[in-house]
């Protein structure tokens, strides 16, 4: 009992010191993110519930008008334009993610079958294009798909598009741009999964199941699922909010949610409407993250999907 007083003071002294240390190291960054990201996002969310004033700036009173407009109710009655945009964003995300998986899966597998000293170089080759600016990459596709280019002529000759239209602007060009943009984000986690693959299981499966297809499905595929999931998070979430690619490659009929939101802050000037669109995007993002976490936990047995 005699030492209990000393105990308390010595321990609390240590705790105070540790807390001060935590504050000193973490506070600058945490404050920075809170002031320059959390507060602005909170403000933006507030804007969505305000009225549209002059010059598109938000004004009191609070209203749900911008959500009504987002759903298509305007001055001239209901129009499906915004809902189309929303649906297009979802559809493009789905198709692009699917295509990325189809391309990335064999590529990631192929890299693991190559000799060890080549693998880092091969991965680098896949990643390097994404180091260039998104605008430049998309600009490259504009050059390739414009009317009169060999690719467009080929598509014309095959009868896919009407003469002198070119492959861009179009929804097809947007899908292509998305696949191009996000391919590395799927290859990397899949490659990591393939590299960890337990070959003993694969060999056992080849013994147990007659066909290679069934061996793949039972032994290989489940083991790559965490990588697939991580890749899906990395691809689908930014794809849904994509702005540059549909803006440059999509034209008027290829708009996605990102363009709808951006327009409200630039040309269209209706901040509350844009903010409402942003809230929708945030909700989709967090639903996506939450779903992946849940699935990832059930699959990986505690191994979390790293974002």
């Amino acid at each position: 009992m005699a030492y209990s007083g000393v105990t308390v003071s010595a321990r609390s002294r240590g705790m105070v010191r540790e807390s001060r240390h935590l504050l000193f190291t973490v506070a600058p960054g945490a404050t920075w993110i809170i002031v320059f990201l959390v507060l602005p996002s909170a403000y933006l969310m507030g804007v969505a519930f305000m009225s549209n004033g002059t010059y598109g700036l938000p004004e009191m009173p609070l209203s749900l008008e911008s959500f009504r407009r987002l759903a298509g109710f305007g001055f001239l009655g209901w129009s499906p334009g915004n809902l189309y945009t929303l649906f297009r964003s979802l559809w493009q995300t789905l198709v692009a993610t699917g295509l990325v998986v189809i391309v990335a899966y064999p590529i990631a597998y192929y890299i693991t079958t190559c000799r060890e000293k080549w693998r880092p170089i091969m991965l680098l080759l896949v990643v390097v294009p994404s180091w260039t600016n998104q605008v430049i990459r998309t600009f490259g596709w504009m050059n390739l798909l414009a009317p009169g280019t060999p690719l467009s002529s080929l598509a014309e000759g095959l009868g896919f598009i009407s003469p002198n239209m070119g492959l861009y602007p179009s929804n097809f060009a947007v899908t292509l741009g998305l696949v191009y943009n996000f391919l590395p984000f799927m290859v990397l986690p899949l490659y990591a999964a393939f590299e960890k693959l337990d070959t003993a299981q694969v060999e056992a499966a080849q013994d147990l199941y007659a066909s290679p297809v069934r061996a793949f499905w039972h032994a290989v595929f489940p083991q790559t699922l965490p990588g697939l999931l991580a890749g899906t998070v990395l691809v689908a979430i930014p794809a849904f909010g994509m702005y540059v690619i549909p803006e440059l490659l999509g034209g008027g009929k290829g708009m996605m949610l990102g363009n709808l939101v951006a327009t409200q802050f630039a040309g269209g000037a209706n901040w509350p409407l844009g903010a409402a669109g942003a809230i929708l995007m945030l909700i989709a993002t967090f639903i996506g993250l939450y779903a992946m976490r849940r699935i990832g936990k059930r699959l990986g047995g505690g191994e979390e999907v790293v974002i």
Partner: protein
Amino acid sequence: MSDSFTADVTESVDAPPVVDTDEPRRQASSIEMQGLHKRFGADTVALDGVDLTIEAGEFFTLLGPSGCGKTTLLRILAGLEDADAGELSIGGRTITEVPPHQRSVNTVFQSYALFPHLSVRDNLAFGLKMRGLPAAERDARVARIAEFIKLGDLVDRRVEQLSGGQRQRIALARALVNEPDVLLLDEPLSALDAGLRSQLQVELLRVQKRLGMTFVFVTHDQQEAMVMSDRIAVLNGGIIQQVGPPRDVYERPVNAFVARFMGHDNLFAITARQGNRLTTTLGELQAESPGAGDLLLIRPETLDLLAGDVTGVNHLPARVTERLYRGSHAEYCLAIGDTTLQATLNNRGRHLPEVGDRVTVVVAPEDLVTLSE
């Protein structure tokens, strides 16, 4: 002190190292601990009132199972952990509140903790550099310690090129080069294989004797503790169970925990006693001067086995149920009634009883030790 590194090998163990006239020689330091308490979280008690004095120049070992508090005690000595209560002094100076970088104490860590971003040479010089010694002096001291520990060309290698045993020696040299008052060793040999381990045990002992420095050594291996130590403290549950020279701790353990930890299995309940006559589950035994306590310890190597039935004082009839022949000796399991007794016989070329033989176990009254649970 510095010259002690180059002292003559033939110098006797107890002779003080040669005094360097330029540097005041520091005496080896004693350590005193009083009422040290340490708790982690709400209910994990690591140390529960430790009072201990370690003499200057002693090779002192803290021995115990994992979680007994021995590492915590070492870390408190190093200053890496603060005691919740109690006093600590080294060389007569109270250092309870002194931060580790101001203590003249160095540690050899279990994982060696060599800095990966530095060469071996810079690792060795790290402590000297931090204390602000000029470069020329640092180089001289590093060269001297490299000579003393016989590091040879290891000094010019990179850390990742070293084997476990080499890392261990670098870690030792990195601590010794600072000429601390006390050297702390946290299971420094536990990561090495058996052969290298016994070789380094000998080397460590040689270094300690020649420097005359106070070493505090932590281990969970009682064999290692007995080989190395001047004195051993056995810890359990944050409490010191027994302190003494290896022979005392091994031959006269004060309680069942110490006895079992030192490797003894022959513990028998004393059901009644009449003067020096003890009634146990083995039968009646005559002890020379039994102490208090209700457990009897019989060390296997004190037993003698006679063929057939022989009567006499402390003669017990038994049957051999198991024999492990180990070359230099043989280990026996003997059945006496329902009780099992273990015995070890040295192989001096005489008859070794076989499994199933009837034998008589003889134990000398002076070899019987009583202790409490």
